[in-house]
């Protein structure tokens, strides 16, 4: 019964993201915008671009993740769906987990998959493209889970998007640091690629646990 409820939640959120007004495509377009604009600002220095390319992709991913996070729980709070979920025979933690999973599938995963393509815009070579894509795949769950806490805290605040960004961005910085350092380690250097990657994976796992519990607590205590 629990699995059936969770499957229904994920399927509903995926269907909503696919219909009009879904946030999945929006964050992907935002990601593309940032990555496309940076080369214009820096000029046609390919060496410079390929050196800072992973950092640009990661910055864009962090900012793109923030887009759409504010509606993660707010939309359900506004239309009363959250009351429905309170009444489900499922702990709120699992509801949060299902919703965050659906959100990541529609925002984080497309970013990671599109990263090699966007890497062309910042003159990344094959290794760097693969490495950046892999770090995004491992690291974006951390961004989504951290964001979910802020989203749950601001669920009942109208136009809470800015507060959400202020709350959440500092907490995303460790993920950003290790994401970029892992991508750069793949291009050579003294640190092996797997060390920062393992730390990044650990950050995602910790964020998965802490974020789920904290977001569920925030939703339960909200008025």
């Amino acid at each position, binding site marked *: *019964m629990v699995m*059936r*409820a969770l*499957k*229904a*939640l994920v*399927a*509903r959120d995926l*269907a*909503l993201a696919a*219909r*009009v*007004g879904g946030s999945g495509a929006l964050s992907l377009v935002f990601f593309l915008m940032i990555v496309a604009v940076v080369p214009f600002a820096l000029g046609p220095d390919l060496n410079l671009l390929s050196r800072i390319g992973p950092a640009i992709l990661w910055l864009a991913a962090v900012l793109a993740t923030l887009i759409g996070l504010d509606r993660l729980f707010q939309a359900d709070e*506004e*239309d*009363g*769906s*959250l*009351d*429905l*979920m*309170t*009444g*489900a*025979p*499922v702990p709120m933690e699992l509801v949060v987990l299902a919703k965050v999973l659906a959100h990541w599938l529609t925002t984080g995963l497309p970013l990671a998959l599109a990263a090699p393509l966007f890497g062309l815009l910042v003159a990344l070579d094959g290794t760097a493209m693969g490495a950046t894509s892999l770090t995004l795949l491992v690291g974006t769950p951390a961004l989504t889970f951290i964001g979910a806490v802020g989203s749950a805290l601001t669920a009942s605040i109208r136009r809470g998007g800015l507060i959400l960004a202020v709350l959440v961005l500092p907490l995303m910085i460790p993920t950003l640091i290790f994401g970029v350092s892992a991508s750069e380690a793949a291009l050579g250097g003294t640190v092996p690629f797997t060390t920062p990657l393992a730390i990044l994976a650990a950050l995602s796992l910790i964020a998965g646990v802490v974020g789920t519990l904290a977001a569920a607590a925030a939703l339960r*205590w909200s*008025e």
Partner: protein
Amino acid sequence: MRLTAQDLAVRRSGRRIFSGVSFALEAGEALMVTGRNGAGKSTLLAVLAGRLKPEAGTLTAHDVGEATLPECLHVVGHRDGLKSPLTAEENLAFARDLLGAPTASPRAALEELGLGHALKLPVAFLSAGQRRRVALARLLVCRRPLWLLDEPTAALDVASQGVLAGMMARHRATGGLVIAATHQALGLDGARELRIEPTGPEAPVSRDASSQDAVVGDVWW
């Protein structure tokens, strides 16, 4: 299922909404929550639904096994819990899978409320009354012993009000409970009335006995 509430008091953002609300409902009984605008009717329903914590008092559901109170009830309120981009059928199928204990199919529930033609329509295309009827169809797609209805007849036409009264009568006949916050007679025969009086410095409000033909037997406030 039976439900007892003892001395419930609620404070929101530091303001006392009501206190000392007590009632007891046996299987098959209905309770009409009345009171002026802003008296705290919806707040009481939110407390019952588990969305608000009471400041004091206890709420106990009996004869429900291990289920908690929020898992034993349906809520239909002003916020209807429907997603506009999804069709009526998808909304109801989601509610059925989420809440468990399915009884009727979304199609059967919608036809019961006279909305069979809206099955494949996105809820965004429906009028306020039709949306409300889709939300009420949720009561039929899965079995829950307690129905919490907040102004259930708002935006409903006369025919649909009759259908709702019939649904509530059948629900109570099978041992279900209904708690409705309302300003109108809902066709709940033998329903008791719980009048919520605002607490605070305001003068006590006199109860006008003529408003509802309700039995105010063992309801305290």
